[in-house]
């Protein structure tokens, strides 16, 4: 059959595989450009990296605070329940707000986040 493939294997740079030497040369030459790219990451990407864990922490804090606020109202109404925040293992600042029966201020939240809750 005249239209069978022509055997071009003599032109194969790596006998059917990846030409490792060529790959190594290319990757070595790419080093400076890759390093430059790592250094000049876009501000939004850097911000996103920073923002994600912060938002997650804020969400947890908000959930815990809501729970605390709800508890605080009940504890305010009945002082015998003052042991509940500690028994629930609420973080220190949150337990304090609950026991005092008050909502946290913005400063309280910031201080709590800086202190790792």
């Amino acid at each position, binding site marked *: 059959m005249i239209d069978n493939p*022509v055997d071009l294997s003599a*032109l194969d740079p790596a006998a059917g595989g*990846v*030409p490792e030497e060529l790959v190594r040369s290319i*990757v070595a030459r790419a080093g400076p*450009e890759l390093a430059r790219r*790592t250094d000049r990451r876009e501000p939004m990407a850097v911000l996103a990296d920073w923002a994600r864990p912060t938002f997650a922490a804020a969400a947890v804090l908000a959930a815990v605070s809501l729970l605390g606020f709800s508890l605080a109202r009940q504890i305010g109404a009945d002082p015998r329940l003052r042991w509940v925040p500690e028994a629930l293992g609420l973080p220190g600042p949150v337990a304090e707000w609950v026991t005092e029966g008050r909502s946290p201020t913005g400063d309280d939240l910031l201080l709590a986040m800086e202190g790792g809750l």
Partner: protein
Amino acid sequence: MSDLDAHLVARARAGDAAAFDGLVRRHVRAAHAVALAVLGNAEDAEDACQDAFIKALERLDQCREPERFVGWLLQIVRNGARNRLRFERSRPTSPLELAAGRSSGSRPGRDAERAEMRARLLGGLATLSEVQREVVLLHDLEGWAHREIADLLGLAEGTSRFHLSVARRKLRLLLEVLVTEEER
């Protein structure tokens, strides 16, 4: 189109060396085939291939369709190889010299045979048009389908088949002539 390419391109844009290595490994053979189709010389093809990957990395932010990275890359390879060809025309390299230079020496008989075959094939490829060389190398050496070749070169699939058929016929005829001449 490849989601993996899009993923690797996104990571390489951020400077991820492993992702760039992945892109090189996936496409270095096709890049080499396209460079060889333009230059007709394996050593120059390797140099052109290296230059093209570096240029592609430098311009990676301009790759608008990362899932079609390979088509974009091969266009850079082709343009770079054509520029190199124009530049190098004043001092052309003989395929036979190149083939001889490539022998490792570990299996002299086999290496010489392979070098001879490479020289014949390169001589045969030189008689084809650039598009015929690209089609036959991508199809018969790299195993690409006509659909992929047609997409890459902006041809109809039938045109790709036609180029392959013509290229094979010419190569086969030329190789037969060379063998006959050597046997005399």
